[in-house]
């Protein structure tokens, strides 16, 4: 675990965080604007300035003590070997894209291939351009490549995709997902885009007003954590094994106790897979409708009913050993007489987020 503990006087409140994130995978720092996310990254990377305001600090990465106010340890930022993609890019204006991305690369023993990343991030055409000649999204891509190429022990990304369009995001997200797998670098990712968070996060730390209000695995938090569910509503994660590949329809059958169909490509038979489904996309019915366009309809056992926002009900149901979550209106709940212990059918389309 990476142990992170900081206490510091900020502008209008005290930042007081004490949390750990796994040394593997993507940990997302999530929270409203001004909650202190960037401040935490600044502290971790050792860039914080007003040392006078720092009350307490402790940072341990790979069993190496990096910050420790008790023992007056504070490794210099350039020795921390952490890369940081800033919210405001900070490309060097006097050198072109190529020199920018090679800046960290040249200063590390990085065994990554610049060509490879240049390709993946589609910046080949921009190599000769100076930062002032790049669009917002182009800057953001260049900044990510620059950070990656330094092959850090910890990669921090502060809303790295916020200036990118859907298409570019879709192209980059898989790559960001791979970073920690391929390069084995833990990633701390700051984002306020819930979709991005749900897709990328392995571990989530939720901040508000300078303190950590919640943290845990994505599979736990995605169901009920209010800030995470406010936009897309609750969601849940199913684990399974691919049991069939239906190439012509671009579908795969996943065995998660029950067999479900989801849209997916480039999968292998027997592959383990985790999928995230939004509760609002699941509906409930008493009998298996034979004449619906909805592909999945699986038997579930109603386990619990909880009040959700806007007068809807959050229904937790069991499907084998796994939990299915769905949202229905009070009206439907009444009509269908949904209650604990009842056997019903959960109906949902083939779209799901593959994690």
């Amino acid at each position, binding site marked *: 675990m990476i142990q992170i503990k900081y206490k510091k006087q900020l502008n209008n409140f005290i930042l007081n965080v004490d949390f750990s994130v796994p040394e593997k995978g993507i940990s997302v720092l999530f929270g409203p604007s001004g909650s202190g996310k960037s401040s935490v990254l600044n502290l971790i*990377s*050792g*860039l914080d*300035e007003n040392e006078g305001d720092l009350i307490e600090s402790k940072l341990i990465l790979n069993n190496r003590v990096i910050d420790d106010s008790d023992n007056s340890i504070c490794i*210099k*930022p*350039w020795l*921390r*070997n*952490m*890369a*940081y993609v*800033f919210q*405001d890019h*900070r490309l*060097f*204006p*006097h*050198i072109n894209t190529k020199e920018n991305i090679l*800046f*960290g690369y040249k*200063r*590390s023993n990085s065994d990554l291939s610049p060509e490879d990343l240049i390709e993946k991030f589609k910046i080949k055409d921009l190599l000769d351009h*100076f930062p*002032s000649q790049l669009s917002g999204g182009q800057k953001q891509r260049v900044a990510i490549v*620059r*950070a990656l190429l*330094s092959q850090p022990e910890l990669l921090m990304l502060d809303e790295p995709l916020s200036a990118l369009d859907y298409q570019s995001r879709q192209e980059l997200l898989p790559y960001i997902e791979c970073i920690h797998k391929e390069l084995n670098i833990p990633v701390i990712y700051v984002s306020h885009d819930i979709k991005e968070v749900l897709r990328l996060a392995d571990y989530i730390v939720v901040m508000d007003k300078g303190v950590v209000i919640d943290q845990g695995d994505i599979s736990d938090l995605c169901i009920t954590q209010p800030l995470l569910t406010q936009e897309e509503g609750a969601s849940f994660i199913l684990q399974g094994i691919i049991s069939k590949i239906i190439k012509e329809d671009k579908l795969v059958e996943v065995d998660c106790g029950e067999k479900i169909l989801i849209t997916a490509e480039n999968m292998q038979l027997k592959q383990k897979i985790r999928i995230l489904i939004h509760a609002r996309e699941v509906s409930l019915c008493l009998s298996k409708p034979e004449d619906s366009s909805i592909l999945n309809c699986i038997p579930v056992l109603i386990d619990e009913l909880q009040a959700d926002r806007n007068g809807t009900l959050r229904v937790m149901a069991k499907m084998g050993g796994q939990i299915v979550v769905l949202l229905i209106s009070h009206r439907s709940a009444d009509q269908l007489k949904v209650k604990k212990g009842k056997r019903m059918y959960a109906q949902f389309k083939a779209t799901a987020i593959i994690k």
Partner: protein
Amino acid sequence: MIELAPILVTLKLASFTTFILLIIGTPLAWWLSNTGSKLKVAIESVVALPLVLPPTVLGFYLLLALSPDGFIGTVWSYISDTPLSFSFTGLVIGSVIYSMPFVVQPLQASFEMVGKPLQKAAYTLGATPYDTFKNIVLPLSARGFLVAITLGFAHTVGEFGVVLMVGGNIPEVTQVLSIVIYDHVEVLEYAQAHYYSIGLLVFSFVVLYITYSLNRKLMVRI
């Protein structure tokens, strides 16, 4: 008749002085622009001080300091046998002290304007402060260096109060162009003074013109 020696001495003096000023002034300006030390303001003030003394007077005090039993002269005698006063080395020391603020101040100002955010970005990419300074701050301060170099160089070329006092006006050693022109004016040889002055002006204009043109290209690129 135009003599070459004073021109060469002048160019040599101005080049040496500017060079040394950059060597000393750059780290000093860098330190000043970054430190939180209480000494900062005091040192900034001390650097600017030689400016307010008339050059000849400064020269006089320097002469005292540089002479074998003066402060600098004594220190120097441990390093070298040749005395400082009336030597080219002494001249350079005098000019360096006198022109210091013209180099340090523009540098400091431009270092400060480059700003922390980019430096921080460089740190996270593994660049040490020195590395960052060299590869980020320095090139981004090109404009400041240009000002520092022009002011420092030109001021040394034009200066003659300190030079006269410390150097002793020895032909081919410490006799610089400014003194020669001055002497011509003094003995009413205005024609020669004009030649030298016009030559100096034209030469300086050409050099400045080229420098500023280069600078312009530089700026456009960024």
